Every structure is written in C-alpha cells, then in structure tokens.
C-alpha cells in the first residue's frame, strides 16, 4: 500500500486550569513527505481553545489568524483591482 504524501492531524494539548475553567488548546498539523522520502514539510497552526467550566459545559473559541486574512484580502483586492482596470481600459479603447 502506498504511503500517504499529505497527512492532516488535529490534536489537543495539555489542559490549563484557571479557577473553575479548564482550557484545552487545539492545533492542526499538516505533514508532507516528499516523494522518495528525501525530505518533507510540517505546518502547525492553532485552531482554537475549548473552554470547559465546572458544570461540564464546553465552549469553543477559535484562534483567528488576522495577519493571514489581511494578507489574502489585500492581495485579492490588488488582483481584482488590476483586473477591473484592465477591463475599463479595454472598453474605452
């Protein structure tokens, strides 16, 4: 059976207790082994934290990646702006 090249894994870390609350950190990792096994890549990113209170109710709080969102939004705006400018110039000629 062929070995999978890309593996996605979601894992939870050691809980942190604060007062009546227990915080479980959750992260996602992507592992990629290059064909031939001569290298690879690992990408770890935070997903969020699960907060459990003394009554046992759980709440998930996501960890937003603001920098990544802004980067994607700005680059997409630049691409769309260029496309619109090209369309406007093309119509006026």
């Amino acid at each position, binding site marked *: 059976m062929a070995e999978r090249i890309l593996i996605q894994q979601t894992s939870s870390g050691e809980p942190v207790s604060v007062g009546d609350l227990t915080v479980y950190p959750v992260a996602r990792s992507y592992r990629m082994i290059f064909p031939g096994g001569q290298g690879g890549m*690992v990408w770890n990113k935070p997903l969020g934290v699960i907060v459990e209170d003394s009554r046992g109710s759980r709440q998930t709080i996501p960890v937003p990646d603001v*920098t990544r969102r802004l980067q994607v939004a700005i680059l997409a705006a*630049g*691409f769309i702006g260029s496309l619109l400018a090209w369309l406007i110039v093309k119509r006026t000629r």
Partner: protein
Amino acid sequence: MDKVVSSPGDAGGFEFPDTTSDVNKTMEALIETANVDRVYGEPIEVGDTKIIPTSENLTFMGFGFGSGYGQGMNEEDNEEDDEGTPMVGVGGGGGGGGRTFSRPVAVVIASPEGVRVEPIADRTKVIMAAITAAGFMASMVFRMTRGPQS
C-alpha cells in the same frame, strides 16, 4: 556511520556509507515537530490570569545523496604491457538543508472570569502584502496606458 558493501566486486570492494538510518532519524525528527506543543507556548502566570502564546510554524527540509564508481586501465603505469593496470575509482556525496518559519498568531488570556483570544497582526507582513498589491496594480496600469509597442 554504518558501512555496507554495495554488491561485492561492483566497486572493487569499496564500502559505500549506509545513510538510510541517518535519513530515517532525520525524517522522524521532522515528523515529531507536528505537535500541538509547537503551537502553544508555556502559560505565563500573571496573578490569577494565565497567558498562552500561540504561533504558526512551518518546517521543511530536503536532502539528496549520490555515489558512483568507474573502472578502467591505467596505461601510463605499464609501458611494456599494452593492457595496463586495472584501476577503480569511486566517489559519493550528499547534502541537505531545511528551515523553520514561525510567527505569533494570537495570545489566549485565561482568567477565572473567562477566556478570550487576542489576535496579533504582523504589520510588516501586512505592509509587504500592500506594497506587492500596489506594485502589481501600478505595473498593470503602466503597461495598459503605455499602449502596444511597435
């Protein structure tokens, strides 16, 4: 490093180094970095509050190995005999490299009153993205306004 003879007689009995175990150890070390502990740092206690730093990290590595041999007759050493002395030459080498990128994403602030997440915006990366987008747009506009080249 372990030594292994690649097929006897192939390279005059030369023992090529066995790099498999080293490669496996390196790959295992890489795979072990896929861990939640790499993302969440040790909690910092400030009174009743605990602050947990979070980061995103990307690690990659690559390596390659090669070896070879050649054989022939050294005619310079043997002037009387036409066939000369049989000679074998072997060689090999390898290399590799890797890098880890890491950047803070947010801090988790946990207090007895509740838990909140404060995101961290990396201004440098955002400004670089804005410069890239502006440069791309300016280049497009410049090319369009200049018109077709003769």
